């Protein structure tokens, strides 16, 4: 107990001295690490946003999605009657059908989805309205991206978002599909009810039930086949030959390799602490204690730089991508921090400890 008290007092005094004489060297490391952590977190968050683009657009949340094989919801089609037939008799579920189409307005492509909007009207997303400079009661021309057709609609209101909402008939006309066809259906309900939904589509029950997508393929030899995906974006991207998991691994590899140079910074920090360590070694501080103190200093530096990176992440939103009128911004997840911060801690304090060990020898 007594030795523990002496040890912690010793540590406190070493940290105090280090902060007084070497604060500039520590600030240098904090700033460099903060920038690297920010870049690492931002790349992961942007990859996450990109790889979940459809999931957030349709507010899938904890629902099950029924769609068909296609490159995107803009090309996939399901029959409402067929889905309703399969789901008949299942209680406590809500089913929302969406038809989505690209629409060209003022030579730019936007997304348009079916909604409960009066005939002849459209509701415009606030950011789209700002971009097109249209106000309430204005008339706009909507061009189909699939056939020779230009339509005319009145702006009757605004919605929060980057898309346009229109009555089903208008969306179907622009997309060029017959009545009763939709891009996808989102089924929501209790866990038990969703299990029944899976059974209705002949999908085996899995342990992880939520966020799983059922894709109903077009009828082949009078049978419809169902496939399971972990994300709506994956269900579509896989048809383009893009595997979401591989893209995610690549994002992790890039984010973590941005931190690969940090052991060199750790070695440099230990170099700037060398004279302090030497003095303490001279007055009898053990090598183990010297290494422990430097690792503690490393931990404090990592703590400060991670905090600074999170602040940067919140205020410096410079990594944005504009696609189909959407502005995709990085959405940081706790998981990303849980991967980046320990990696940084391991690499940086590893460098510090290695440096101090060789200095102490």
């Amino acid at each position, binding site marked *: 107990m007594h030795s523990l008290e002496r040890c912690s007092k010793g540590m406190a005094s070493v940290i105090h001295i280090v902060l007084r004489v070497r604060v500039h060297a520590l600030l*240098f*490391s904090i*700033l*460099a690490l903060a*920038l*690297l952590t920010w*870049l690492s977190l*931002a*790349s992961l968050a*942007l990859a996450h946003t990109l790889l979940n683009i459809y999931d957030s657009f349709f507010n899938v949340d904890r629902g099950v999605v029924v769609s068909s094989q296609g490159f995107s919801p803009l090309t996939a089609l399901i029959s409402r009657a067929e889905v309703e037939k399969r789901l008949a008799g299942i209680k406590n579920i809500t089913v929302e059908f969406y038809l989505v189409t690209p629409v*060209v*307005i*003022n*030579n730019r*492509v936007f997304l348009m989805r079916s909604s409960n909007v009066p005939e*002849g009207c459209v509701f415009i997303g606030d950011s789209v309205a700002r971009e097109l400079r249209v106000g309430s009661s204005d*008339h706009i*021309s909507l*061009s*189909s*991206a*699939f*056939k*020779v*057709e*230009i*339509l*005319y609609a009145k702006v009757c209101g605004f919605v929060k978002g980057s898309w346009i909402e229109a009555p089903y008939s208008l969306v179907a006309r622009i997309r060029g599909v017959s009545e009763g066809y939709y891009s996808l259906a989102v089924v929501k309900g209790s866990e038990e009810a969703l299990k029944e939904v899976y059974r209705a589509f002949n999908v085996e029950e899995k342990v992880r039930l939520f966020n799983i997508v059922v894709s109903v393929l077009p009828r082949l030899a009078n049978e419809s086949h169902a496939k399971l995906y972990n994300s709506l974006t994956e269900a579509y991207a896989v048809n383009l*030959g893009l*595997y979401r998991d*591989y893209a995610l691994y*690549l994002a992790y590899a*890039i984010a973590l*390799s*941005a931190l*690969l*140079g*940090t052991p*060199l*910074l750790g*070695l*440099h920090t230990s*170099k700037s602490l060398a004279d302090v360590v030497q003095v303490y070694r001279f007055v009898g501080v053990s090598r183990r204690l010297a290494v422990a103190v430097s690792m503690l200093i490393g931990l404090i530096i990592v703590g400060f730089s991670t905090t600074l990176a999170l602040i940067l992440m919140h205020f410096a939103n*410079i*990594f*944005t*991508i*504009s*696609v*189909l009128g959407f502005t995709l911004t990085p959405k940081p997840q706790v998981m990303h921090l849980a991967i980046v911060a320990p990696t940084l801690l391991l690499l940086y304090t590893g460098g510090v400890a290695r440096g101090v060990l060789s200095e102490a020898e």
Partner: protein
Amino acid sequence: MLFLAVLRRGLYIAIVVSVLTPMLIATALHAIPSLEAIRDLLRVYGDTTLIVMSSEKGFGECYVAKLLNISVSTVNKVIEFPVLAVEAEPSIFLKRLGLSGSNYTAVLVFPRDSFEKLRMPSNVDAIVNGTQIRCTTICCWDSNLALLVSKGILNTSNSYLCLESRESLAVRELESVEKELLGVAKLWTFILILACTPIFYAAQRRVVEALRAEIVVLYSSGASKQDIVASLASVLTALHTASTLFTLALSITLVYVSWSLAKPFIPMLPPSLRTDVVYLALTEILAGALVSCIASRGALKVWQASYT
């Protein structure tokens, strides 16, 4: 002598490690498959013509056009409805839309439902911006508004109607997505190179510290402090530049080798390297050269430490 000492003792490893990460990431991000690889896929998208309104002369064939409300007087009534007025020769324009336009001077094309509902006669008088125009009516086109085509109806307008192929629109959208992705990648790697500058400094200082004995020998044999600092700066810059170029070459090889190895297992589009990566390499070389000027001053500290 300093350069040979660095090479003989393998001190360049620290510098190669410091420059490797930014260069590898820059190359990987600038080698994402290009649109060229999927252009053939887009051909199946067909050559259908799309009609697009635009506030500026856009892509494809553009005509001055405007959304207007016009009044039409038929035998016994006056009706007001929206039209898309296009300033063009009717015979040419209607042919482009696949409609039979013939040789009329002004043509009013109706959507099928309103044409039947209004029981339009073959000729009507339309009032456009206060001017009366005699139009020939034609049925029908797929829309919910009528189309008025004539020469001299719109002298000035700030909007256009463009006829663009479906493939061209798809290519344009994909190109903009590619541009956005590459833009973010470029900005991210640029900041990464700046953020790695302290790491370049740390690596170069390690080299300077390791050359302690050589610096002392040079000083004892009469070289001035300035000369030693200048020679060190040149050696560090040369090392940094060579390491950056080496890691650039290594990264390009790695990207293509990993693609060819992964190809049999995962269907992947071929990588296509952008020249922007050269500019990023130049930024890294410049950052390293600036840092080497500061790091070489560490020789003075080494000298002081040796003589105190």
